[in-house]
């Protein structure tokens, strides 16, 4: 039974690690890999476009991570307060819905909605007198990040609430009954029972999501364009362009390796932080 799991792990997770050696080579489709030491890393650290991508990755991912925790926990708490079971299921179903759309479809939907020519949002804002001229949101450096955060929350908030709703369901009703006898209202019960009971789950979800902070790619790739590279280009899209479009495999492997090291530091740091606060980590 273990063999398929082992084979899958080996083929897709461990064997590709052998490719790390290309980070120390000059390697294009036209030449054999030549060992060049740390030259790719020297080039990397002197490349302004790389640092721009690095900053964007942190800003977009950490912003999205914080928003995701706030929205998911908040909405889970509010869903929990819906008394009618049918209404509760209906709300859950509707807010899960966008998760099942692929990023390509989501990008197409929002590109149409935010379009300057007949786009629903621009039409509405112009009719309400909020703006005079339609704004090309997807190509505006001032608006792109806000739009990206919104689209991410639109797609994933519902899905993010599942784990917190499950955790809320698992809280012992005895605690609420005891609190009620002590005279605590719903707000106090939420503040002193529900939220503290959710803290471990929040911490686990936070650390697991922190591991993915540097992996943001698909959502950016389908929504960005050359006009907003300064605020949208992330490490993975940068690696994609350098590696696959410019065929510079050695350099793009160096970028990928740097990204993995930063991810490792973030996860280890978060786990250390968790141990300090909570007395135990999860890794």
């Amino acid at each position, binding site marked *: 039974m273990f063999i398929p799991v082992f084979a899958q792990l080996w083929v897709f997770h461990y064997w590709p690690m052998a490719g790390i050696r290309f980070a120390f080579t000059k390697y294009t489709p036209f030449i054999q890999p030549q060992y060049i030491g740390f030259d790719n890393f020297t080039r990397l650290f002197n490349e302004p476009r790389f640092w721009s991508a690095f900053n964007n990755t942190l800003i977009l991912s950490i912003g999205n991570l914080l928003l995701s925790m706030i929205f998911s926990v908040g*909405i889970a708490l*509010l*869903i*929990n*307060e*819906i*008394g*009618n079971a049918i209404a509760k299921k209906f*709300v859950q179903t*509707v*807010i899960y*819905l*966008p998760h099942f*759309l692929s990023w390509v479809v989501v990008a*197409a*939907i*929002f590109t*149409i*909605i935010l379009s300057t020519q007949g786009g*629903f949002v621009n039409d509405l804002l112009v009719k309400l007198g909020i703006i005079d001229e339609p704004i090309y949101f997807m190509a505006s450096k001032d608006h792109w990040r806000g739009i990206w955060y919104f689209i991410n929350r*639109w797609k994933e908030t*519902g899905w993010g609430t599942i784990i917190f709703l499950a955790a809320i369901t698992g809280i012992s009703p005895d605690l609420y009954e005891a609190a009620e006898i002590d005279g605590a*209202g*719903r707000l106090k019960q939420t503040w002193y029972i529900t939220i503290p009971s959710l803290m471990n789950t929040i911490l686990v979800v936070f650390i697991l999501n922190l591991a993915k902070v540097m992996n943001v790619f698909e959502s950016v790739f389908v929504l960005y364009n050359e006009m907003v590279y300064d605020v949208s280009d992330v490490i993975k899209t940068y690696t994609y362009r350098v590696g696959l479009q410019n065929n510079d495999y050695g350099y793009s492997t160096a970028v990928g390796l740097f990204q993995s090291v930063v991810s490792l530091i973030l996860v280890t740091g978060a786990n250390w932080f968790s141990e300090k606060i909570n007395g135990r980590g999860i890794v």
Partner: protein
Amino acid sequence: MSQKFSFKKGYRGRAIFVIFNTIFFIIVMATMLIPIIKVCVDSL
């Protein structure tokens, strides 16, 4: 989790919360559904 819905003293706060919670979820659901419905309708 369901409690008595009433505007009598002692239940008023809960009733106001339930109304705002319902309005909030109507807005959230509209935000989730409008983009999908709008694009589907426009594509017909």
